[in-house]
């Protein structure tokens, strides 16, 4: 049950984050880029900068904050996937010379109402 549930929560978070970023003026290039090595939740761009987004969603705060779930290991995973993405799509690599890694953390209430949404820019800096 949990595996399917997790994926559902992930989808839900991506929806919320994508809407949020669109409002902020980002262009969504890719949603849930998936390979057998891992995945990237969102690939977006704004002002000519390619940005890979890791989305975390939590229902309620019983199990801590979404920020706590993004540690050094998760960051290196996203970074590795970003490199893979650019290898996979050489055209993208030609357009965008550099890239950033961001995180969007969403906390909702038990019934799915968004309580807060935070966008952290440039995590690896």
């Amino acid at each position, binding site marked *: 049950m949990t595996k399917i549930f997790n994926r559902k929560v992930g989808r839900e978070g991506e929806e919320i984050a994508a809407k949020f970023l669109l409002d902020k003026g980002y262009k969504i290039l890719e949603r849930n880029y998936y390979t057998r090595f891992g995945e990237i939740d969102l690939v977006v761009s704004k002002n000519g900068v390619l940005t890979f987004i890791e989305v975390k969603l939590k229902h309620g705060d019983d199990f801590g*904050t979404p920020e706590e779930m993004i540690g050094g290991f998760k960051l290196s995973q996203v970074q590795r996937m970003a490199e893979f993405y650019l290898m996979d799509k050489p055209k993208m690599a030609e357009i965008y010379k550099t890239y950033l890694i961001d*995180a969007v953390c969403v906390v909702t209430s038990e019934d799915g109402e968004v309580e807060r949404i935070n966008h952290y820019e440039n995590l690896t800096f």
Partner: protein
Amino acid sequence: MLTKVLSAAHFGLEATPIEVEVNVFKKGFPGFSIIGLPNKSIEEAKERVKTALINSGIEFPNLKIIVNLAPADIPKEGSLYDLPIAIGILSSMELVEPPEEKSFFYGELSLDGGLRHTKGVFLLALAAKSLGIKNLFVPKDSANEAAVIGGINVYPVSSLSELIGFLNGISEIKKLDHIVHRSLSTDYEAVEFDFSEIIGQESAKRAMTIAAAGGHNIFMQGPPGAGKTMLARATAGILPPLNEEESLEVTKIYSLTGNIPPGEGLITQRPFRTAHHTTSRIGLIGGGSDPHPGEISLSHNGVLFLDEFPEFPRSTLEALRQPLEDGKVSIIRIAGSVTFPASFMLIAASNPCPCGYLGDPKKECKCTPRMIMKYQAKLSGPLMDRIDLHINVPAVDIDKLIDTPRQLGSQTSRQIREQVIKARETQNKKFKGLKIYTNANMKNKHIAKFCDIDKGSLLLLKQAVNTYNLSARTYFRLIKVSQTICDLAGENRILPNHVAEALQYRIRTND
């Protein structure tokens, strides 16, 4: 906002001030990182500080926090940075107002927000005094160590919330009064064995008294069961109390190793330490990549008892040579060099051979000559040369053991201790201000200055040196022992009978 809180790091017996810089960012990805060469115990401070703050009723900020321990090139260890980090975070969040005067914050936090006994507070107080730092915020259990040093404000802190209240001017923490060193306490503390319980062995007891009075090293040899271990353990009961300077020196080492129990201040009882023969060289001498004092430093100004002396690895025994001569030990590692004081009185006990009955009048020795040679070769010449008193502890006659009524034994430890204290007082008076405390500590220049030897004694010494081929070191050591015997007798001048007695402890049977 950036805030700076002062704390300290230890290296050897010195404490260096460390600035704990804390920045709580208003933006950025939340996280908590500590930089400035922290080791694992400081890495774990994150979890302790976080939980302690939450349990003190403060919401831990979901913000980016960076802690820097400056200067950043000194490796740091220990749990003592918990309190300065917590105070740094709080003042960076503008929840407390750090004091305007320079203050040291020091201590380990418990998860419930209380402060735990932390080692090294005595050294911290010494550093505070020399650096002119006024206030000290330390755990309540360790605060007595700091109160021994006068001229600084010592605040005993029992919990984080208490300190927050104090810094914000809401509640009060009472400063500790300066604790003055109790003058030579003559109250007797009973130990495991009393000298009156040891039947016979009068000459060994006399030698022990001399050793204790002058801080001389002593070597006992005898068959198993003769009472060597008992004699050594009983010696703990005749040691004089520490004088003020000695006590400060011992407390420094004990504070560094965390050997001071919670709530205690100065160490006033003379150390008596025993080391088993499986003790490693580092454990005995001191060392490690971050140099720590070993048993010889922990028995500084006291007694180190090494039972079954030849069973120690040779390398361990030979490493004792330099500290036995210099009264200190220098440990040199990549991280730097540290000198620990190690002026101790060595009591060593051994059997004459592996089976233990060599030279026994009743029981036959079963060892081959080769075994005996191998056993005795462990006790190298240079090492034995540094031991002033050599005694034989023969087996006690069974008739004597049964017939002698307990009470009629001999002098009690309490009586012997009084003699020892008297002799030590004479020495303390003589060596005032010289940083030496016993006759055994004397260097050759001190011997020339303090030992008054009459003509007959000098002649006797000369004859002994010629007859027995004694080394120059032995010659000076003989004078030191004679001086102690002279002090015990309450005389001002070394007389031939003092030298004669000293010689009797010098000549080893198998030399």
